[in-house]
């Protein structure tokens, strides 16, 4: 194995030397779909505190980032929707937790811009609302646009379906969501994958996240993938 290998045996070793109190982290996923389950557990076990976490949602009371809220490891969240987590609502309303709401598309674009080296962008989203308060605005052709800035983090935790030892990633279905942008928006992106393969196994034409963005990678284990709202339809009677 070359000394430049990106491959680690598990989540705990992949976080080693990276995690400390007060970090800003990005964590991929939409609801509980496509979240880095292994890394969140290892982060909880690391005991790191005063974390700022950028994630579209905050998990549920008993899964995902909700686990880190329970242990009070998170100081601040930057999210678009946290309605599935009562502990979150309680901590926020009591002033224990700081919260910055971003419209979902603005959040996605801020992360994309951060990763692409773009300082900021003007968007129609949020003009005339609380979101625009204190932000620079510009009126173009009678329409108001709000300046939103690019977002970067110290560490990004992402989850992919397949990855190779070079860090190339492929996501599956709607588990892609915020993961690709987050992978690009920090100097230390750690990816957990369900299948870790040798280079040449994945079709280069199908790679969603090129390996340049991924610094560490490991094969995750014991995926739970809880379903938040199980909805089904009946089969027509035979």
């Amino acid at each position, binding site marked *: 194995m070359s000394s430049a290998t990106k491959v680690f045996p598990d989540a705990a070793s992949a976080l080693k030397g990276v995690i400390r109190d007060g970090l800003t982290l990005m964590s991929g996923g939409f609801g509980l779909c496509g979240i880095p389950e292994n890394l969140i557990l290892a982060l909880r076990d690391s005991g790191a505190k005063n974390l700022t976490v950028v994630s579209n949602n905050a998990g549920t009371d008993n899964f995902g980032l909700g686990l880190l809220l329970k242990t009070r490891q998170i100081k601040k969240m930057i999210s678009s929707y*946290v309605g599935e987590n009562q502990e979150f609502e309680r901590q926020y309303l009591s002033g224990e937790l700081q919260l910055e709401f971003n419209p979902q*598309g603005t959040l996605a674009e801020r992360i994309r811009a951060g990763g692409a080296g773009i300082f900021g962008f003007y968007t129609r989203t949020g003009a*005339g609302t609380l979101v625009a308060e204190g932000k620079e605005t510009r009126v173009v052709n009678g329409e108001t646009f709000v300046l939103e800035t690019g977002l970067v983090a110290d560490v990004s935790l992402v989850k992919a379906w397949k990855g190779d030892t070079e860090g190339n990633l492929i996501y599956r279905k*709607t588990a892609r969501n915020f993961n690709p942008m987050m992978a690009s928006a920090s100097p230390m992106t750690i990816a957990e994958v369900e299948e870790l393969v040798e280079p040449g196994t994945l079709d280069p034409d199908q790679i969603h996240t090129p390996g340049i963005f991924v610094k560490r990678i490991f094969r995750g284990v014991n995926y739970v993938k809880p379903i938040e*709202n199980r909805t089904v339809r009946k089969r027509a009677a035979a």
Partner: protein
Amino acid sequence: MPWSRNELAMRAAKELRDGFYVNLGIGIPTLVANYIAPGMKVVLQSENGMLGMGPFPFEGEEDPDLVNAGKQTITQLPTSSYFSSSDSFGMIRGGHINLSVLGAMEVSEGGDLANWMVPGKMVKGMGGAMDLVAGVKKVVIVMEHTSKDGAHKFKPRCELPLTGANVVDLLITDLAVFSRPDRQAPFQLLEMAPVVTLEELRSKTSAHFKA
């Protein structure tokens, strides 16, 4: 007699046109998918990263990697595609989605929408609603005409924090339908639910509208 939830969804579905790309919000808006006219091709977008949302899966075929924006299990169609959240909101913000149906807590006579926050009480977040109303060509709102305690919801100004300013094109309530041809025009009463009178409607509406 006020319209039922399903009747509201049915009314909203009349706004769909062949070939439309559509984003449906959570709640009554989701039901609109049940009333797409036979033979009409409508592609449903889910802002978490999918075009061509299929129906709920058969029991036992749920896939945790395949959910809609309400975190419900769904299925893919032969026409489906998946993409990242930034591509998804590029479609939304960039004006590529023809129509969106959303719920509301308040709508103002100038077309302002409030549907994401009750200060000091409800802290859930706006999700994708602000992006949708800022970027989608036609915004259809479905809501109950008044709150449970009778408070007006279609009023001169919204009191709750806004989701978007001057963004509503069509308002469907359980009592009536109001539309405006463009975002400079006032709302015009279009239809009323059975047995509802203009007098009753006015008594439950503080917003100005053309009758």
